[in-house]
């Protein structure tokens, strides 16, 4: 086998020498054969002639020898390639058009493939990433789709499971790092010592936590991430052993993590909503914590034993959950689910990415169809050349191969140009990066992407080349050669004579209609989202997160005093008309909730206590945000820590428990031990978690009675609010440089950013759909214009016989519209079945939204009409005299 290959390669590279040797061998044979005949008495001339006859056609022998060497295919290919390059060079405009179409089609596919590959295929950057899982509590029966576990549950899982070889518990929130020129907020994760080794993290400097640090009574330690170490400590190589101040406590730095390590929000959504942890702290739990099922604020990560499947793990953990359900009297739907870590990261964007991938594949399909059409036109023009080759003895296979070589060559050229397009697309995607699409910052082109591009380039070349090649190879020799080089007529002005091209255009229109429908539905969803009232007025409001806690702010009075002073300072800034503060601002990751008891309401048995969102607000928060008061009153300065405790509830809670509008004056409390709180007022519902997400019931506490340390400051301004950002931050620093300020943004931007994912999907799909529509329009134009060119004599004759110009015009339109309407009808059918897959991306619009369907059908018909117009006008202006004389 190997020698065979070597032989083929040798002959391939020594082709000229091998051919020369063959010639010499044949000459020798002829000489000897002739010599034989001469000796038998023939004349020189007769002897040579007989010898030639005996050997047979020399060229044929040579050809057969080449075939026997097994390199014919490749030699032919090289010949075809040379010829192909020459042919493509001869018609640079057409070639450029084809390569451009392909470049866009292939480029867009390459870009989306690299997005898909980065997001969905690349393993997470941890050791044994496919064995990692995150655990969630679920109680779908009582409206809690997902909740954090508690230390008690962690203890049970860790000690009772048979499927994990490691498990870790962690808790995330933000901390304040002081001792630097200015205090900063850092995101931190407290965790058991098992976490970092389980993820396969080796410290860059120092060590990670020891198992004894999982119990209380150890020295306070901290591990820094690379980024924090570089930014805040200048990459100090002697940092290990140094003491730093976190939340007012001195902690010894014991290690620095490697640069590439990250454990971001999308991987582990902590209860504190931190984005990127910058410090890791030990999480000491004592034997009392091991029995504590109350604080459901922790994350549990685990690693499956080798060979254990996620299903097996789910079954085992499900059994533990069932036990807990019995012992702890949880609701009947309570369970603990094991979610593969990659699923956690990409689960809710998978469908969007796959839809985009599908859409972009359709665009490529249309591009292919278009190019196939262009090639068909060219093949028609080249019929004479092909007929000539066939007449000279080229087999059908040979002709098809040659045409395919050309189209694959085009495909590869398109692919090469497509790489540039893809690079540009990726640049745009990175610029548009909404921030909340996980892993997008890892985006790039790797070998996988390049292999994909190569593969689709070749495939594309074959797909768009096949039909024209077979069509061209079935040439009617006589007709083609007689037609004198202008190519055979498709005959008259009837698109039905050219079924293949008609079918291609119909397919193009159908596919682009499907894409347009998808894009249309997304646009409609987006408009719906934009029109969702957020419950507050985001215009002219600036907001920032201020964190006053630590030893200086241990006392309620200290915190209250700090924010009171800050309020005075902010209000004195020019341009600020009002200011307020809230513990959890809408459309930020900040959260706050707790149990609540309502006087006169007994929750059904077997259900946990009522859970509501709780927030602490300053009196002017509601007026600053323009959240409407519907009943009662807002907080006032008369609500103090000495006066009657009051709350404000939102309309949702009021409607749920006091539907007759009599909420004001009713009493609620956190638990049996806490005092009753009187409802002072009812305010409008605020979209806290996103415009497309249902809110939960909310209880607002007055800041004077519950002074929190971490607050969002909001200020309404007369002018563009962003100009006030620096001045407001400065006020905080002036008041206390140890209080960090972060997450500064105008409310308008928060609303805008909260729609980033939807905007991203809409823009991408919209762009693909537009591109598909343009390609389809070019396709219709191409076919109609070709039809008119081919049918010019026919038109001329009709005109000479007295046909009106308007009837010629309508003839062309009829042909074009027949194609368009069939395409649109088929596209509608396709769209009906495909848009169902988009359910998760839609908001306020049905996947069968009639307005969208009718709208895009009309739009595409209009575009097709326009594409027919130019060829039709040309047909109308045919001068019968000129056209017929050309005949």
């Amino acid at each position, binding site marked *: 086998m190997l*020698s*065979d290959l070597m*032989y*083929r390669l040798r002959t391939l590279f020594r082709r000229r020498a091998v051919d020369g*040797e*063959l010639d*010499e*061998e*044949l000459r*020798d*044979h002829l000489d*000897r*054969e002739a010599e034989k005949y001469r000796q038998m008495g023939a004349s020189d001339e007769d002897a040579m002639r007989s010898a030639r006859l*005996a*050997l*047979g*056609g020399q060229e*044929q*022998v040579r050809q*057969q*020898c080449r*075939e*026997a*060497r*097994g390199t014919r295919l490749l030699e032919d290919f090289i010949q075809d390639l040379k010829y192909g390059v020459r042919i493509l060079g001869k018609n640079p405009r057409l070639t450029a058009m084809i390569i451009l179409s392909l470049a866009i089609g292939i480029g867009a596919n390459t870009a989306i493939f690299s997005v898909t590959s980065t997001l969905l295929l690349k393993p997470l950057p941890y050791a044994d990433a496919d064995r990692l899982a995150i655990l969630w509590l679920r109680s779908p029966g009582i409206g809690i789709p997902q909740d954090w576990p508690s230390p008690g549950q962690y203890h049970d899982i860790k000690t009772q499971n048979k499927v994990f070889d490691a498990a870790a518990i962690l808790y995330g929130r933000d901390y304040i790092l002081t001792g630097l020129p200015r205090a900063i907020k850092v995101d931190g994760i407290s965790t058991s010592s098992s976490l970092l080794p389980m993820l396969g993290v080796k410290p860059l400097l120092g060590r990670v936590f020891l198992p004894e640090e999982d119990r209380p009574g150890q020295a306070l330690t901290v591990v820094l991430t690379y980024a924090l170490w570089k930014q805040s400590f200048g990459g100090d190589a002697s940092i290990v052993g140094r003491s730093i101040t976190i939340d007012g406590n001195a902690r010894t730095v014991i290690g620095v993590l490697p640069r590439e390590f990250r454990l971001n929000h999308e991987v582990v959504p902590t209860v504190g909503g931190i984005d990127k942890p910058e410090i890791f702290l030990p999480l000491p739990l004592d034997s009392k914590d091991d029995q504590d099922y109350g604080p459901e604020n922790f994350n549990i990560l685990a690693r499956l034993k080798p060979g254990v499947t996620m299903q097996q793990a789910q079954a085992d953990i499900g059994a533990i959950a069932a036990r807990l359900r019995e012992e702890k009297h949880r609701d009947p739907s309570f369970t603990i689910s094991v979610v593969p870590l990659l699923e956690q990261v990409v689960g809710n964007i998978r469908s969007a990415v796959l839809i985009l991938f599908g859409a972009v594949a359709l665009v490529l399909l249309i591009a292919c169809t278009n190019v196939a059409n262009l090639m068909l036109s060219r093949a028609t023009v080249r019929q004479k050349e092909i007929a000539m080759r066939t007449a000279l003895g080229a087999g059908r296979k040979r002709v098809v191969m040659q045409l395919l070589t050309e189209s694959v060559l085009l495909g590869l050229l398109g692919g090469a140009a497509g790489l540039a397009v893809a690079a540009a697309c990726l640049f745009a995607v990175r610029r548009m990066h909404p921030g909340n699409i996980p892993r997008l910052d890892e985006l790039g082109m790797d070998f996988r992407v390049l292999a994909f591009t190569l593969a689709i380039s070749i495939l594309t070349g074959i797909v768009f080349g096949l039909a024209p090649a077979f069509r061209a190879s079935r040439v009617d020799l006589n007709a083609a050669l007689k037609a004198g080089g202008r190519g055979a007529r498709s005959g008259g002005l009837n698109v039905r004579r050219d079924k293949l091209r008609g079918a291609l255009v119909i397919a193009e229109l159908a596919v682009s209609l499907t894409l347009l429908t998808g894009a249309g539905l997304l646009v409609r969803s987006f408009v719906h989202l934009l029109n969702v009232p957020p419950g507050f007025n985001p215009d002219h409001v600036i907001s920032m997160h201020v964190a006053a806690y630590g030893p200086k702010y241990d006392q309620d009075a200290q915190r209250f005093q700090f924010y009171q002073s800050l309020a005075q300072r902010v209000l004195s800034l020019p341009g600020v008309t009002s200011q307020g503060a809230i513990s959890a601002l809408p459309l930020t990751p900040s959260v706050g909730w707790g149990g609540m008891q309502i006087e006169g309401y007994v929750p059904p048995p077997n259900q946990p206590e009522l859970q509501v969102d709780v927030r602490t607000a300053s009196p002017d928060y509601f007026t600053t945000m323009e959240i409407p008061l519907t009943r009662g009153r807002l907080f006032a300065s008369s609500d103090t820590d000495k006066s009657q405790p009051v709350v404000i509830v939102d309309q949702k809670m009021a409607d749920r428990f006091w539907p007759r509008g009599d909420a004001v004056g009713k009493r609620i409390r956190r638990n049996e031990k806490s005092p009753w709180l009187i409802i002072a007022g009812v305010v409008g519902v605020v979209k806290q978690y996103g415009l497309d997400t249902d809110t939960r019931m909310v209880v607002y506490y007055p800041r004077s009675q519950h002074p929190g340390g971490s607050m969002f400051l909001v200020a309404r301004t007369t002018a563009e609010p962003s100009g006030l950002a620096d001045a407001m931050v400065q006020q905080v620093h002036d008041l206390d440089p140890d209080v960090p300020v972060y997450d500064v943004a105008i409310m308008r931007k928060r609303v805008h950013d909260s729609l980033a994912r939807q905007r991203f999907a809409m823009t991408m799909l919209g762009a693909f759909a537009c591109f598909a529509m343009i390609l389809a329009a070019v396709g219709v134009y191409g076919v109609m214009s070709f039809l008119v060119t081919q049918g010019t004599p026919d038109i001329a004759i009709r005109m000479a016989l007295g046909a009106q110009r308007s009837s010629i015009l309508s003839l062309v339109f009829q042909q074009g519209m027949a194609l368009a309407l069939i395409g649109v009808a088929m596209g509608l059918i396709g769209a009906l079945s495909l848009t169902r897959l988009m359910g998760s991306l839609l908001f306020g619009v049905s996947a069968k939204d009639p307005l969208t369907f009718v709208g895009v059908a009309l739009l595409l018909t209009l575009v097709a009409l326009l594409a027919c117009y130019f060829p039709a006008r040309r047909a109308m202006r045919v001068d019968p005299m000129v056209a017929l004389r050309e005949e």
Partner: protein
Amino acid sequence: MGDERLELPQGTLDLLILKALALQSLHGWAISERLQQISREALQVQQGSLYPALHRLERRGWIKAHWAISENNRRAKYYDLTRQGRKQLEVEMLAWRKLAAAVGHVLDMA
């Protein structure tokens, strides 16, 4: 002149070439002459089909070619059987005999 002679069945040309080369190394024309002789002029060997067959056998590694000066003092391409080729010859001869016997047997039954 060749009306009486048999057309060579497909695939047997390779066998005959191997057989011819089993005795000594030969150049192209000599192989063609030798085939005529040993088949007692009964087989019709197209001289033209000889050369593709030689290339094919060389590709399979059953024969090897080298250039040498021939008896009439000219450069000629000589072909030799390789060890693999010798084995192949045995295999094919055995196969041919079995086939011939089997076909003969079938024909005798009638």
